[in-house]
């Protein structure tokens, strides 16, 4: 059965077809949510919300683009909006922490590559980070990214290039590892 037939069955209320559609796409949705959120509970929450919205709004899916493209548009919207809310909350917490730490001197431990990489990716602007993770880590094409984020393919390419440039600078201490 091809996907359009499966979608038609879901629309007609076939719960087995709903599960089949979910099974066909859940891995990619969850992986992307996890890569962006970095937290299993949040990734699960975002994945569930993505599918709940997708099933509720399946009637508005016209089939002009692939179902996966439509689904990933919902995924990125759910995840990025969710992360903005969490970030806002954590910022409040960080402000409180900063207020408590005035006058405290920290010694920065020498971080390893994994830690430095995490810091560098986390420090990227949201758009750069999203495109970088979707393309270089999860293997989405620029066309898929453009459709999911509602930007031109060229914008996706440019943001990826800028993300890599920023990471190259941030990880310059490890240059020996890629120049050999």
């Amino acid at each position, binding site marked *: 059965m091809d996907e359009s037939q499966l979608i038609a069955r879901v629309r007609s209320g076939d719960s087995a077809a709903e599960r089949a559609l979910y099974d066909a796409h859940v891995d990619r949705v969850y992986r992307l949510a996890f890569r962006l959120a970095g937290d299993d509970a949040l990734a*699960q929450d975002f994945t569930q919300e993505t*599918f709940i919205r997708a*099933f509720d709004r399946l009637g508005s899916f016209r089939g002009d683009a692939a179902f996966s493209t439509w689904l990933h548009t919902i995924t990125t919207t759910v995840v990025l909006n969710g992360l903005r*809310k969490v970030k806002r909350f954590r910022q409040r917490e960080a402000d409180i922490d900063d207020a408590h730490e005035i006058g405290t001197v920290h010694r920065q431990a020498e971080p390893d590559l994994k830690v430095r*990489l995490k810091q560098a990716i986390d420090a990227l602007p949201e758009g750069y980070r999203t495109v*970088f993770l979707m393309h*270089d880590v999860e293997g989405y094409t620029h066309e898929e990214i453009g459709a999911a984020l509602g930007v031109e393919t060229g914008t996706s390419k440019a943001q990826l*290039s800028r993300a890599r440039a920023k990471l*190259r600078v941030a990880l310059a201490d490890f240059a020996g590892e890629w120049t050999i």
Partner: protein
Amino acid sequence: MTDQHEDPKFEQWLKNVADSYHAPRTTPRDEMWAKIQHARRHKHIIELRPWMGWAVAAAAVLVLGIGIGRWTANQSDDGSRVATNGSTPSAVPGSTPVTREIDSLAGVAYRIAATQYLSRTEAFLTSFRTDANRSANTARLARQARGLLATTRLMLDSPAANDPRLRSLLEDLELVLMQIALLNPLEDGHDRDLINQGMNQSNVLPKLRSAIPAGPVSARTQGAL
């Protein structure tokens, strides 16, 4: 211009090392599917909750009552006019107010739903603050927060959220409830403090309380009617 720093060796190395960034575990398919099914059923149940059914029924009775009252009032007005003018009323008056009241029925029901929900959330957050030092209650609080979180999201998607002030409050509540829902029962002391500090900073409880009409819940509900 953006290609000037491209370096295939760096890009390949970056792809390799970045694979460890937020590396996902195996997809918990069945676990998430069960939650999706539950949430979809829950959404349906909320729409048909007994108190909402009561509210809608009560509002419908009220609307009908208003309509009949206005219709009979207009009838008697017309009757007096008949007596004075000596003519017969040609149309049944009162249809416009009835239509207007029916149009506002959905808004009334959502206001009642919002009042009930805000009252429950106020009670829950107050309880959370007073229980802040009792780690034994964490699992229960997280479970309750998840339930309220689901309702919050439904409220955000409902016409109740058309009010910008209510929407802003719901968004703040969603954030707080999400944090409580994610509390770890083993390591929660610091996290609880942070949530409480966040609530203090954003004035969630005062905003919540000011959004709820004064009086006990049942009276508030009736007040909305």
